[in-house]
């Protein structure tokens, strides 16, 4: 995030001397004696002109890439016979996600941890971390604060068919669908019509499944839904700029 970093420091162990560390790339650095200073450290970051733009990027833009990196890490660890490291990394990732304001993603990571290490095999530290973090991760900036896992949208079996068909189609690919909603999550499709209940869903996609196949399945299974389903992360990952723009326009319109 910086073009150049300078550290001017003086140790309590040798208060008569100070040093300056300078690095431009992060890969090389210099250290030299510097003018005296009080005990302590001054860190100066020379910021690139692009810094304000970087700051304005929404954290969630990174969630998709971070999730992919995390899953690759899980797979590698599992392939090397690791038992609990994945869970510990997952818990740490959930904590980081929450720190950047992505509470929904944080909740998703915690769910993955629970799937990796089922309750009877959980070491105490993992159980404790899950118990501490779960309540903090469920809340969300979206109206999902009280969201529950759901299998059906209504009590009317006819109206639930679409969701069941989507679930079945994804299962054919080996993808698991986890759907959430709440009474508060209402979407206004049109000013003249009463709002409809919205859902928010996570897909657990095995590493070997092609992203394009998941997209194709989502597109065909939800083509006739009352309101379009958005999957902007997928479109972004596949570089489908036009479709992404349409979904973003829709998301803005109904204030997703």
């Amino acid at each position, binding site marked *: *995030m*910086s073009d150049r970093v300078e550290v001017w420091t003086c140790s309590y162990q040798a208060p008569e001397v100070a040093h300056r560390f300078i690095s431009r790339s992060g890969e090389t650095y210099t250290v030299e004696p510097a003018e005296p200073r*009080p*005990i*302590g450290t001054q860190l100066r970051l*020379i910021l*690139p002109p692009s810094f304000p733009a*970087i700051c304005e990027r929404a*954290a969630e833009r990174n969630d998709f890439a971070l999730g992919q990196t995390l899953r690759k890490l899980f797979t590698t660890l599992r392939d090397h016979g690791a038992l609990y490291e994945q869970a510990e990394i997952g818990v740490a990732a959930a904590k980081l996600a929450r720190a950047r304001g992505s509470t929904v993603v944080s909740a998703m990571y915690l769910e993955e941890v629970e799937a990796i290490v089922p309750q009877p095999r959980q070491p105490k530290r993992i159980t404790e971390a899950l118990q501490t973090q779960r309540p903090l991760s469920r809340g969300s900036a979206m109206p999902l604060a009280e969201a529950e896992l759901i299998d059906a949208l209504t009590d009317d079996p006819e109206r639930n068919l679409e969701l069941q068909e989507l679930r079945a189609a994804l299962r054919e690919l080996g993808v698991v669908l986890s759907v959430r909603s709440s009474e508060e999550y209402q979407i206004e499709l049109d000013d003249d019509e009463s709002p409809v209940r919205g859902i928010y869903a996570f897909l657990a996609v095995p590493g070997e499944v092609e992203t394009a196949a998941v997209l194709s399945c989502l597109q065909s299974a939800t083509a006739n839904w009352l309101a379009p389903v958005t999957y902007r992360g997928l479109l972004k990952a596949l570089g489908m700029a036009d479709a992404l723009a349409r979904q973003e326009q829709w998301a803005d319109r109904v204030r997703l």
Partner: protein
Amino acid sequence: MTASLQKTKVDFAGLMRVLGEALYSTPHVAIRELVQNAYDSCTRRALEAADRFEPAIAVTVAPGVLTITDNGAGLTAEEIHSYLATVGAGYTRALREQGAKGLIGYFGLGFLSRSP
């Protein structure tokens, strides 16, 4: 062909990029890490140094420059090489493993956050 023990190679630039992107998704998180370093440095001075001091951390922003100043333990030249310039080597972890309380850093990655 006989088996031979080879040393794993590390693509340093790639590793820095992956770690930077995966750990620090926004500059805000990266800046928080640097402030945490300053906090841990003050904790270290309180634990190790004999003198009494009032811990202080200041973050100032000028156009194009962000400055974080602390009156913590500071670093010797040797510590700069060992901890500041070595990714994954954190002095805080060593302190924590000796039973020190009130520290934040762990993996020796906080300073990496300022890398391009």
